[in-house]
C-alpha cells in the first residue's frame, strides 16, 4: 500500500453521487470499481465526508458479499456455481484453477496480486453452463482443461505486461 493515499478519485465519486449517508452503497461500489477492493484509507475519509461513523460504513461494507476489504488480483476469475453450472461440473474447474494458482477457499488472491479466484451463485447465463468470467468477460462451456489454457494465456499476457482486459 502506498504511504500516501490520493483522495481526489474518492472525492470525485462522492461529489458525483452526493455526500449523504444514503449514497454509501453507490459510493462504495464506485470506489471498488476503481481499486478492485475497498482500501482501508477510505473509511475515515468517507466518514468525515458523509458525516456517518466509520463503524457504520464498515457495517455496510461487510453486509454485502460483493464488497471486498482485501486487495483483489489484476484478473478476477469468477466461477459460476449456480445450480445449472454446478450440475454441469463447475467444481472441478474451480479446483483446477485453485490448484494451479495455489489458492483455496480462504486464500482467494495470489500473493503477487495477479489473480483472484472466487465463486458466484449464478451469473444468469445458465444456457452457457458451466460458465466463468474474467474481469466480467464471459467464457462459456468451460472444462478444467479449457480453464487451464485460458489461465496460461492470461499469465503470459501478464508477464509481457499485457492489457488489463482479458
Amino acid at each position: 500500500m502506498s504511504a500516501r493515499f490520493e483522495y481526489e478519485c474518492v472525492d470525485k465519486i462522492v461529489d458525483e453521487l452526493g455526500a449523504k449517508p444514503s449514497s454509501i452503497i453507490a459510493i462504495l461500489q464506485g470506489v471498488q470499481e476503481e481499486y478492485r477492493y475497498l482500501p482501508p484509507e477510505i473509511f475515515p475519509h468517507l466518514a468525515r465526508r458523509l458525516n456517518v461513523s466509520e463503524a457504520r460504513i464498515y457495517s455496510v461494507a461487510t453486509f454485502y458479499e460483493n464488497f471486498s476489504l482485501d486487495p483483489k488480483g489484476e484478473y478476477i476469475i469468477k466461477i459460476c456455481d449456480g445450480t445449472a453450472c454446478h450440475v454441469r461440473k463447475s467444481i472441478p474447474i474451480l479446483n483446477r484453477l485453485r490448484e494451479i494458482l495455489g489458492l483455496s477457499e480462504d486464500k482467494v488472491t495470489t500473493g503477487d496480486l495477479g489473480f483472484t479466484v472466487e465463486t458466484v451463485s449464478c451469473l444468469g447465463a445458465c444456457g452457457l453452463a458451466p460458465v466463468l468470467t474474467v474481469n466480467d468477460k464471459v467464457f462459456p462451456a468451460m472444462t478444467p482443461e479449457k480453464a487451464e489454457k485460458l489461465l496460461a494465456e492470461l499469465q503470459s499476457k501478464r508477464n509481457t505486461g499485457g492489457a488489463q482486459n482479458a
Partner: protein
Amino acid sequence: MNRAYMTIDNIPVEIAGEKNILELIRKAGIELPTFCYHSELSIYGACRMCMVETGRGALEAACSTPPKAGMHIKTNTEKLRKYRKMILELLLANHCRDCTTCGNNGSCRLQDLAKRFNIQGVRFPNTAEGNDIDDSSLCITRDQNKCILCGDCVRMCNEIQDVGAIDFAHRGANMKVSAVFGKSLADSPCVGCGQCAAVCPTGAIVVKDDTGKVWKALDDRAVKVTCQIAPAVRVAVGRDLGLHRNENAIGLIIAALRRLGFDEIYDTATGADLTVLEESAEFLKRLETARAGGTPLFTSCCPAWVQFAEKKYPELLPSLSTARSPMQMFASVIKEETSRISSRAHVHVAIMPCTAKKFEAARAEFRQDGTPMVDYVLTTQELIRMIRESGVLFSELTPEAVDMPFGASTGAGVIFGVTGGVTEAVLRRISNEKSAGALMALSFQGVRGMEGVKTTAITAAGREVRIAMVSGLKNAADLIENIRSGREEYRFDFVEVMACPGGCVSGAGQPPAGSAVKEDRGRGLYAADKMCSIKRSEENPLMMNLYNGVLKGRVHELLHVNYNKEKIHA
C-alpha cells in the same frame, strides 16, 4: 372532544398520543417483555418479544405498531406464550450461559425473562464458542458470546451519543457488534461513557470491575486507604441495598465504607466547591478579556465529554476550562495533604457514578511520578457489590458523617451530579445578588430539569451572559454545529456539557434504571442541596484553609490541567 379507545385484553384503554401500542399496553399496567425497546432510542423491532395478537389472530410487534381507535389486541395467549418461549430458547441457544460468573448476574433481562417464561431447557446445541472478550477499554468489557444482537448499544452509541464507536458488522449467522475493522474498543472512537452498558439487556457489555484491587488495598495494613464519594452515588444505592427508595443515603454509605475498612472518607462535593471557584474565576476573567461572540467556555468536568472533544473536536480544546474535575482536584489535595502528614503508603479510591472516570484517573496528566492521584475508581455498581459481599446490613446501619480535615461541603457541590448543576453552582458564585431570594430565583432560570438542551441568560460582570447546558453527546455535537453557524441565537458565553443524558445521576456506573428513577435521583440531589446550610462554594469555610494552606502558590499545579496538547495521553 371525542376520546379514542382501543381494547387491550378485553379492557378499554384511552389513546392519549402514545406513539405505539407498546407504550399503551405498559400504561395499562401490563409488563410486555422487550429486549430492543428503549423509549429514548429509535424503534428497531428486532427482538419480537413484544408481539401481540390482533382480533383476527394476526401477530404484530407492539413497539412498531401505532395505536388505532377500535383496535382489539391480546397480550397473553397460548400462541404468544409459545412464540416468546421459542424466541428465548433460540436466543439462549447461542448464548454463553455461565450466569453464575457473569458480571450482570441478577440484573440481566435475558435471565429475568427466561425465568418469567419458565424456560426449563434448551433443546438446541449451544453454539456459543470460544473467548471473544474485549477488555481493552478501561471503562467497559465486551463479551460477544453474551450478545443477543438487539442493537441497543449500537443505537445508543450513534443516536444519543453521536460517538459511533460500534455498529453491526457482517450478516446472518456471522453478524456481530463490532468497531470498524473489528478493532478493539481502545482503538475505536469510544469515549468510555458506558451508556451502551447501561442499555445492554445482557452481560455482553458490562462495567469494568476493579473491586478486587480495592479489597486488596483495604486488606493491606501498611496502606492507608482514603476515598471520596461523588454526589450522584448517594441517590442511587438505596433500592439495591434494601431501602424502600433511592433516598439520599450518604450517611449510610459512609458508615458502610468505614466497616469495609476505609481509613478516611470524604465527599466529592468538597472537590466540586474547588472546581466552582476555579472555573468561575476562569470564566469571569474570560468575560473581561474575550470579545463577545467568540467561542464559549466549555466545562471540562465530564471525562467522556473531554475525550469526545479530543477525538472529534480537537480545535475546541483551547476553549475547555482548565479547571480539573472535582474528583481530580480533590484527589490532588487529599494526596498532597496526606503525604505532608505521613509517609505511609496511601491509596485513594473515588466512588463515582461514571465509567469514564476510570479512564480519567488513568490519564497521564493526573499522575505524579507515575502514580495516579486517584488509584482506583469504583462505580456505584461496584460499591453496591462490595457492600453486599461484605455482609454489612446496609439498611440497619446508623448514618455517619465524613471525616476531617476535608469534611465541609456546600449545596453547590452536591448539585454537580445533575445536568444544569455545574451551571447553577457557577451562577451562585458569579451573580452579584447574594440574597436567599436571588438563590431561589436562579433555580427557576431554566437551569433545572432533565431536558437534553437548556439555555438561560443572566447578568454578570456588567453584561448579559448567555449559557447553554447540554447532556447527551449528540446534543453537544448539534450545539457545537449551531454555535459554528454563527447565528445570533447560538451565541453563548458558557456551555456545560455532560455526556450522559440527564447528567451524572444517569451515569453508566449507576444501577440500570428507567427515566423516572433517574429523574427521582436528580430531585434527590436538589433536596440534598436544600438540606445544606451553606449553598455557595465560596462560603465553604474549608476553602479558605485550603487556599491558605496546601494550595498556597500551587493552585495551578494542583487544580488545573491543559488538555490542549499535541500529544494526547499514553
